[in-house]
């Protein structure tokens, strides 16, 4: 509304300057030829290169072929990106706001709420039609994963995949410290005990649980939230936010025990590249226990192309479920907990060809496409159980997460204010790692939270 007026001025300014419009690639054109674009935060030769190659070299030719067989002349263009998620999100938002951007777009599951509220994405049923609701793939996607793509009861996108978080540990260090190689802690105390033993056996950093603002969302997802779930809390439940509850105090208390008790390296949490460094240190055998997602296994210590390769990953790296503070004290009364996230893929509301765009979207999530995409060491947990059964067979960790962890997992609330709440949580952990008592940090967090979510009324008593 505010911006509309300005566009008039801008147009006047443009015509006054006599600026010639420079070509803008747009879909359509004459005849039956349909041009579609698909964009991801992936780029050949850079970030998520495998995904980019998959789209360019397999999805596009196969899809065009399939459309041709149906008698439609469809050409698809891939628009790569490959930058920080925040930058990708910024650009995507600007594009969507202006009615630009690719026809098929990828977003992080956690952005669904804010994008929907801003009108940047639309329910697929409204935009595409009933075929989106009745897509046969839905039956293969577990309810929880479908929830990722759902906002206020409506499906805005198709889920692209999911993940889960576990405790990784170095079996070599464990053996040296006299700990079992098939370690599975059943309470937080057991984690602390193991860390203490690692410490006395000379391990420089017994345990790494991300803290502080420098690691950003990695602190929240691989730190606060799984622990909070283990203490029986959720960051938001039934529209109410969790403030300085006992669960929050317990969570921050664990941080206090780790970083105040010399079991972790508080400095590392502050470093701008702290997470990279932690990966490096784990690979070098300097870290005993690390809370991470399956990406760590696939992309970091992967002996083939990880950023911190471990040639003996399969022998040395062990993994265990994250225990509740005490058995049965986790969310939903669970003994073990985890957190999951996942990407979404949807149709740009500004597309000129919603039906074809949806066909392309659905095609990228067809069993064939997913199997092709996860070939050759690019295996990940797809949203489809039918596909997962096949592709995860040779992958013990991913099978473990898919079968043991995903049933226990929880998701972040897909609301617009979440990113700011996340920062507040990171700040609370930073404070504790820096020496502030856990109760004090929890109280400060609650105060900050009140400012973010619109007063104490929105915080659970």
């Amino acid at each position, binding site marked *: *509304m*505010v911006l509309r007026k*300005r566009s008039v*001025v*801008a147009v006047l*300014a*443009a015509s006054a*300057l006599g600026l010639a419009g420079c070509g803008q690639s747009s879909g359509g054109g004459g005849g039956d030829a349909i041009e579609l674009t698909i964009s991801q935060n992936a780029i050949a030769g850079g970030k998520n290169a495998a995904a980019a190659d998959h789209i360019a070299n397999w999805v596009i030719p196969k899809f065009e072929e399939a459309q041709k067989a149906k008698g439609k002349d469809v050409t698809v263009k891939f628009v790569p990106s490959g930058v920080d998620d*925040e*930058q990708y*999100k*910024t650009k995507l*938002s*600007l594009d969507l*706001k202006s009615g630009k951007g690719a026809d098929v777009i990828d977003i992080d599951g956690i*952005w669904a*709420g*804010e*994008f929907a*509220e*801003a*009108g*940047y994405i639309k329910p697929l049923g409204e935009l595409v039609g009933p075929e989106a609701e009745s897509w046969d793939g839905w039956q293969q996607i577990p309810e929880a994963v479908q929830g990722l793509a759902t906002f206020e009861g409506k499906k805005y996108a198709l889920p692209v995949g999911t993940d889960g978080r576990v405790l990784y540990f170095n079996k070599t260090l464990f053996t040296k410290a006299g700990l079992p190689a098939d370690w599975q802690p059943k309470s937080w105390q057991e984690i602390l005990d193991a860390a203490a033993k690692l410490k006395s056996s000379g391990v420089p950093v017994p345990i790494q649980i991300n803290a*502080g*603002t*420098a690691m950003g969302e990695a602190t929240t997802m691989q730190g606060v939230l799984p622990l909070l779930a283990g203490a029986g809390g959720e960051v938001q439940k039934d529209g109410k936010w969790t403030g300085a509850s006992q669960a929050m105090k317990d969570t921050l208390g664990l941080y206090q025990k780790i970083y105040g008790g010399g079991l972790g390296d508080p*400095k590392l949490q*502050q*470093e*701008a*590249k702290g997470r990279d460094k932690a990966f490096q240190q784990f690979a070098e055998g300097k870290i005993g226990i690390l809370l991470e997602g399956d990406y760590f296994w696939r992309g970091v210590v992967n002996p083939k192309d990880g950023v911190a390769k471990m040639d003996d990953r399969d022998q040395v790296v062990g993994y265990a479920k994250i225990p509740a503070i005490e058995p049965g004290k986790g969310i939903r009364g669970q003994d073990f907990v985890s957190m999951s996230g996942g990407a979404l893929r949807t149709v740009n509301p500004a597309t000129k060809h919603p039906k074809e765009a949806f066909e392309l979207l659905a095609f990228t999530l067809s069993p064939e496409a997913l199997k092709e995409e996860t070939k050759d060491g690019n295996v990940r947990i797809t949203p489809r159980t039918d596909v997962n059964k096949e592709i995860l067979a040779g992958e013990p960790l991913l099978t473990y997460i898919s079968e043991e962890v995903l049933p226990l997992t929880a998701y972040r609330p897909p609301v*617009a*204010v979440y*990113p*700011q709440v996340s*920062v507040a949580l990171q*700040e609370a952990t*930073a404070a504790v790692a*820096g020496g502030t008592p856990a109760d004090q940090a929890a109280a400060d967090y609650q105060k900050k939270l009140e400012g973010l979510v619109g007063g104490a009324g929105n915080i659970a008593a």
Partner: protein
Amino acid sequence: MAQVTSPPEPAEVVSPAPARRYSSDAAGLGRLRAGAFVAPALALIAVFLVFPALWVIYLGLTNYRLTGVAAAEPQFVGLDNFVKALTDPEFWDSTWLTFQFVLGSAVIGQVVLGFTLAWMLKDRRGTLKSVVEGLVILAWILPSAVVSFLWVALLDRDAGTLNALLGIPGFAWLLDYPMLSIIIFNTWRGTAFSMMLYGAALGNVPPSHLESARLAGASGWQQLRDVVFPHIRGHILTNLLLISLWTFNDFSPFLLTAGGPDGKSEVLAVHVYKVALQNGDLGYGAAISTVILLINLVVAVFYLRLLRSKK
């Protein structure tokens, strides 16, 4: 215009009624042509600078966000964002850090080092001068993405060159001394501009003036104060103004420390980046940008007063 009449008798000349006016500036531009010279630049500036800048100032009065409800329907909130900024201790911390950053790296670091280099190399020619100047300028023209990487590598706790040279492995420069680190970094990065500017300015100081000051027995410092400084006052003003402005808005500390640890090096430009891009709070970010503009204005007026009044 008058025409030539029968030659030498001046008496026969026909004077035109009122002499036609034409411009009397050095090049004979005249206001009209001067306008034509300025117009393309001004038009570009008007469309691509003034207009969006005013728009930013306007955004600062709304609750506009990158996403969410406020993206679809931003509300006019008056001065709320400014009140929020002025009552937010983080903003004040950030402002204070920015002052340290500008004072330390621009006013002290770049100006002093740049002047020292210019002064030392003033009467030199040859390899030494080209090598020193070349290296200093290299630090200035390399892209910040590359340069920040170099400094991350230099200051790394474990494998960094600096710790290796000093024999203090594990010393966490970026964590324990984040402001010092970015101040030294920015001094390194930006000294070239001051060096070149002062190099040129010193070239304009007549050697005879220095000669006579030296004959009068003036010490090095007295020569600087009494002869050099009055001559280059204008250059100092330009230099201070530009580098302060640039340093105020310099985003590259983010690439080194990401504002951390715990906001201890979160200068205003980084603060705005975090607010506007990472949190998507564009209205508030725009308001802080406007405040930065006002601070810059105050700084500029201060410099002008300081250096112009003594003329």
